[in-house]
């Protein structure tokens, strides 16, 4: 925060760390931006608040889908993957209630509005492999690169630029992919499959989450991963002031345990769906890619079939600056920035070797292409799809793991 801005505020702020002042300024600006949004459409402001909360949560819990998949193979660690499963459990419960209210009888062929029930087929697998490989190469997935960009990681800015390029490539070639692959792929929604209904679909999803969880515990034990001992408070917290300070540190200074991050994110996606739609971040970046190409006179052709598919990329048609996707995607940036500033973790960080920039850009392009094909990233096609009781989420997750495995083989060879 420039001294010029803090100086007129005078003595009241003396002794307050500059990053705190900056955090408050960002927060005030973010809230101020909600005013024109609310004038345009009330939902925009609500989604903006949820986007901010999601960014804050991602930053505080250092939630990283890329490392969740990568560390399974690199170190046999499942710390973040277990937190993701917890978040999926929370979100599945909420999504089921929302979908049940919209479509009480799932057997008649109607899919719940906005649910991320995406095509299942080669495009899902190919998209997941490309995305999984790309996120390991670049060191973060799309949501991860968004919150790290706000923390000052310059390599993440490069990754995001790559993602926009990759999404732009798919926008230009989408109709070929549609005709060749996607149009023939079924959307499999569990409640409407094999007479499962909501009860059967929920039982199956929770059983699968439980099996995955136990498998991860075995996986960690096999690799000999140690759990860190929980540090005990050095002295008893007696006074009100002590307790308050302790809470402040727990929320704003120390990183949150991954499990807390997973559960909170699970809750946030449920509230987002209650307001309008499940969380996704590639729709807004597709909008950015398309708008950029249009301004250079290379507008992508009208995309076939996307309007019948839920999820991220299908929302890229919204016009104007503020849109529902803008709120839940761009909102991550100020949310994460506030978190980083309060924790005093903001810093412009430049990679020292040029190889890292190449990794970020290449990984970003692959992630863009992968999420374009799969109609979503680790958020839209995975974290919002499994709770939508869609088979696509599981298949995309498995393909992400495959891509991450291949990515690990590559980065082991890059010093």
């Amino acid at each position, binding site marked *: 925060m420039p001294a010029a801005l803090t100086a007129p505020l005078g003595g009241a702020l003396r002794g307050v760390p500059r990053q705190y002042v900056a955090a408050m300024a960002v927060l005030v600006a973010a809230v101020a931006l909600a005013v024109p949004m609310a004038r345009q459409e009330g939902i925009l402001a609500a989604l903006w608040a949820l986007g901010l909360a999601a960014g804050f949560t991602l930053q505080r819990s250092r939630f990283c889908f890329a490392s969740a998949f990568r560390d399974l193979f690199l170190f046999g660690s499942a710390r973040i993957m277990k937190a993701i499963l917890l978040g999926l459990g929370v979100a599945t419960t909420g999504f089921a209630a929302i979908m049940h209210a919209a479509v009480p009888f799932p057997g008649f062929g109607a899919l719940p509005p906005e649910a991320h029930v995406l095509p299942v087929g080669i495009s899902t697998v190919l998209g997941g492999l490309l995305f999984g490989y790309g996120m390991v190469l670049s060191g*973060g997935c799309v949501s991860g690169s968004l919150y790290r960009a706000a923390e000052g990681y310059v390599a993440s800015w490069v990754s995001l630029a790559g993602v926009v390029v990759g999404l732009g490539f798919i926008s230009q070639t989408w109709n070929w992919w549609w005709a060749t692959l996607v149009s023939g792929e079924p959307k499999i929604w569990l409640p409407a499959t094999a007479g499962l209904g909501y009860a059967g679909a929920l039982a199956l999803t929770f059983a699968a989450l439980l099996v995955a969880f136990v498998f991860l515990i075995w996986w960690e034990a096999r690799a000999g991963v140690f759990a860190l001992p929980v540090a005990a408070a050095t002295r008893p917290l007696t006074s009100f002031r002590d307790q308050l300070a302790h809470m402040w540190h727990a929320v704003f200074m120390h990183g949150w345990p*991954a499990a807390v991050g997973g559960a909170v994110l699970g809750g946030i996606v449920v509230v987002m769906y209650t307001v309008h739609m499940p969380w996704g971040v590639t729709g807004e970046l597709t909008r950015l890619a398309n708008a950029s190409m249009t301004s250079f006179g290379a507008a992508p052709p009208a995309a076939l079939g996307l309007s019948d598919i839920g999820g991220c990329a299908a929302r890229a048609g919204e016009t104007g600056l503020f849109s529902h996707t803008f709120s839940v995607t761009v909102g991550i940036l100020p949310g994460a920035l506030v978190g980083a500033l309060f924790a005093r973790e903001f810093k412009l960080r430049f990679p020292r070797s040029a190889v890292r920039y190449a990794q970020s850009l290449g990984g970003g392009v692959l992630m863009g292409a992968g999420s374009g094909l799969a109609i979503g990233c680790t958020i839209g096609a995975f974290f919002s799809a499994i709770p939508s009781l869609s088979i696509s989420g599981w298949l995309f997750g498995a393909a992400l793991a495959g891509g991450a495995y291949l990515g690990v083989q590559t980065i082991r060879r890059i010093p």
Partner: protein
Amino acid sequence: MKLDVRGEVCPYPMLKAVEAMKKLKGHEEVVVITDHAPCLETIPPQAPRFGYSYSVEQTGSPEWTIRLVPLGGER
């Protein structure tokens, strides 16, 4: 041995710390300097696998020094 991994992000700081602990085999301590907060949760759990204990000290905003100390001297 000093490892200055400022500017590097996951998984490189951990990979380099693990590589150093493997190479030194508990004969020497490893001091890791990082500005990447996730390292605080990824490097310490690796220490006991290679016969090391760890301590973390915040040495800047944001900067941390993770000291990996051999357990019980020569192994």
